[in-house]
């Protein structure tokens, strides 16, 4: 603690400093603009902040090593850089969405934009956290901003309820996580995550560790909407304002996965302790647990989604299902799996933001996202429906969209592991294979509900509807996102450039 804070400590945090300044600038600017212009001005500042931050990250990305600024409470490695780049870019696109549509009503947008910036800031720090307290802090920043944002739509019952539900479940699990962390601190006597996890890996009493770690990951499992903690997801997605839903689905989810990495990577912790608890049973018990969670999540979500008729709720269940697929890749702690997961976040993010953008346009016109309002859209807005089709194809995972590459990479990472283990431990290997089979079957089931909006928009006849007003800006952004979705089927564009 004798070290002073040097320039080198602050440099990797420059994007966060920019984000903080951005928050202040937005609040200030909001003060000076009228209510009418507030949305565009604040969102524009938000975009500028995020683009600046992303630019700084790209500049810093070249040639660096792992840094531990501020006497090791943060860890800044390549993974952190790439994830922060993703968060800021995704956030920027969400600000573009706010500029294009108006879901919050005639209110001043300063708070909303600064809250989104705050949440992104929380996400960035979370992915760099190396200290238990910083971890909790960042998690809370992300969460609290999200709770408020979920209920940000004034005089709207759905939004209030969504915010309340999200808060109650979230705060509960965060409190459990904090309690678990207190035990981690107690057992390892250090607040440093890397060191404490390594110490715990060599700890004797397995039973205590199981409880502690389950408690600690409660918040993460909840936020990822892993079954059986997924009940909040469709409600919150449906009730929140659409840009916030997009934010939750894309940035929040990726941030929490990154947080899970940070906790588990320093040691193959679960495998070891579970082995200790159950004696002679192999340490693959952790993997089986992950399989169970992932398999149940995928299947439950896909089957529940089949009955949905509200677009946002549909995408809520789809978020749960995708969390299941991502968790599957998580059971393979190998660098290729991490890269494929990062690619998957990107692809999933693009498709989700695109789909939510179109949903936002529909809500602007009809006031609700029920699928019955989408009839006849194929005839009046063909470009919109083509973009929607590409996004939904990406979510299903069909060629020629990037979603296929994402799923392909994910499954190949798991298949890698499966066949490697198959000849050593055939039960585990076969479970891996069965789970891949389950995942692809789930993709097929998901086809039925993802194709529903398209079916309603294109195949069903309706009384002539007037054309949905879509601004040129929205069209342009949607086309860019759709083209990206098609181009990224060549996953080399991303994977080859990620050097972990």
């Amino acid at each position, binding site marked *: *603690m004798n070290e002073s804070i040097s320039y080198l400590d602050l440099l990797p945090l420059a994007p966060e400093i920019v984000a903080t300044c951005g928050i202040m600038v937005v609040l200030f600017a909001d003060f000076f603009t009228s209510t009418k212009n507030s949305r565009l001005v604040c969102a524009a500042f938000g975009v500028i902040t995020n683009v600046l931050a992303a630019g700084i990250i790209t500049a810093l990305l070249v040639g660096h090593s792992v840094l531990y600024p501020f006497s090791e409470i943060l860890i800044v490695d390549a993974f952190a850089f790439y994830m922060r780049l993703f968060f800021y870019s995704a956030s920027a696109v969400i600000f573009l969405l706010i500029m294009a549509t108006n879901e919050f009503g005639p209110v001043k947008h300063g708070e909303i934009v600064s809250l989104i910036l705050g949440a992104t800031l929380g996400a960035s720090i979370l992915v760099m956290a190396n200290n*238990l*307290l910083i971890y*909790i*802090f960042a998690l*809370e920043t992300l969460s*609290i901003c999200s*709770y*408020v944002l979920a*209920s940000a739509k004034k*005089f*709207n*019952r*759905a939004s*209030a*309820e*969504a*915010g*309340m*539900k999200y*808060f*109650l479940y979230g*705060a*509960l699990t*965060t*409190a*459990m996580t*904090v*309690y678990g*962390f*207190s*035990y981690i*601190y*107690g057992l390892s*006597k*250090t*607040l440093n995550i890397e060191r404490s996890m390594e110490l715990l890996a060599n700890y004797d009493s397995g039973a205590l560790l199981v409880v502690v770690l389950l408690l600690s990951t409660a918040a993460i499992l909840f936020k990822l909407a892993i079954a059986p903690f997924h009940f909040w997801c*469709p*409600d919150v997605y*449906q*009730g929140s304002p659409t840009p916030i839903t997009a934010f939750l689905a894309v940035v929040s989810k990726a941030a929490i996965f990154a947080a899970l990495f940070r906790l588990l990577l320093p040691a193959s912790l679960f495998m070891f302790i579970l082995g200790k608890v159950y004696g002679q049973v192999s340490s693959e018990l952790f993997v089986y647990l992950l399989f169970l969670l992932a398999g149940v999540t995928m299947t439950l979500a896909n089957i529940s989604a089949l009955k949905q008729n509200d677009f946002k709720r549909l995408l809520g269940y789809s978020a749960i299902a995708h969390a299941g697929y991502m968790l599957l890749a998580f059971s393979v702690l190998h660098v290729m799996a991490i890269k494929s997961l990062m690619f998957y976040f990107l692809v999933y993010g693009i498709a989700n933001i695109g789909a939510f953008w179109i949903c936002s346009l529909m809500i602007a016109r009809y006031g609700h996202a029920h699928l019955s309002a989408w009839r006849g859209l194929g005839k009046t807005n063909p470009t919109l429906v083509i973009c929607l089709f590409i996004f939904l194809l990406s979510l299903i995972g069909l060629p020629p969209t990037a979603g296929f590459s994402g799923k392909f990479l994910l499954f190949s990472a798991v298949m890698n592991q499966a066949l490697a283990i198959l000849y050593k431990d055939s039960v585990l290997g076969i479970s891996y294979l069965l789970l891949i089979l389950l995942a692809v079957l789930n993709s097929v089931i998901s086809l039925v509900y993802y194709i529903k909006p398209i079916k309603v928009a294109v195949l069903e006849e309706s009384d002539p509807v007037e054309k949905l007003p879509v601004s040129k800006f929205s069209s342009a952004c949607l086309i860019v996102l759709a083209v990206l979705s098609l181009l990224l089927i060549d996953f080399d564009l991303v994977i080859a450039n990620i050097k972990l």
Partner: protein
Amino acid sequence: MNFERMITELGFTTTAPVGLHSYLVVAAILFSMGLASCLLRKNAIGILIGIELMLNAAVLNFMAFWRFSGGVGGGAGPMAAIVLMVMAAGEAAIALAIFLNLFYNFTSVDVEQASNLEG
């Protein structure tokens, strides 16, 4: 009345006057009470009380572990306490804001009444 002798006769002796495990047990009791409050109550403010209880149980844990490991970690205990208490306060403020919004929309803070979004 010699309480100390009474306690010793009842069998609750410890080598130290109050050991680490006492604090942990108290914290655990607080945590369970908080958890129960969260899960069993319908009033949103009651749930918030439960969350606060859980967080404070964690603070107690941090302080106890710090104290009984000779103060390693450079003030980790008090640091955790302050951070967590600030966080809890912030969370409570946000919570109340959200509940106020809820009340405005539903005229009650009963969480079971706010269930429009089912299905």
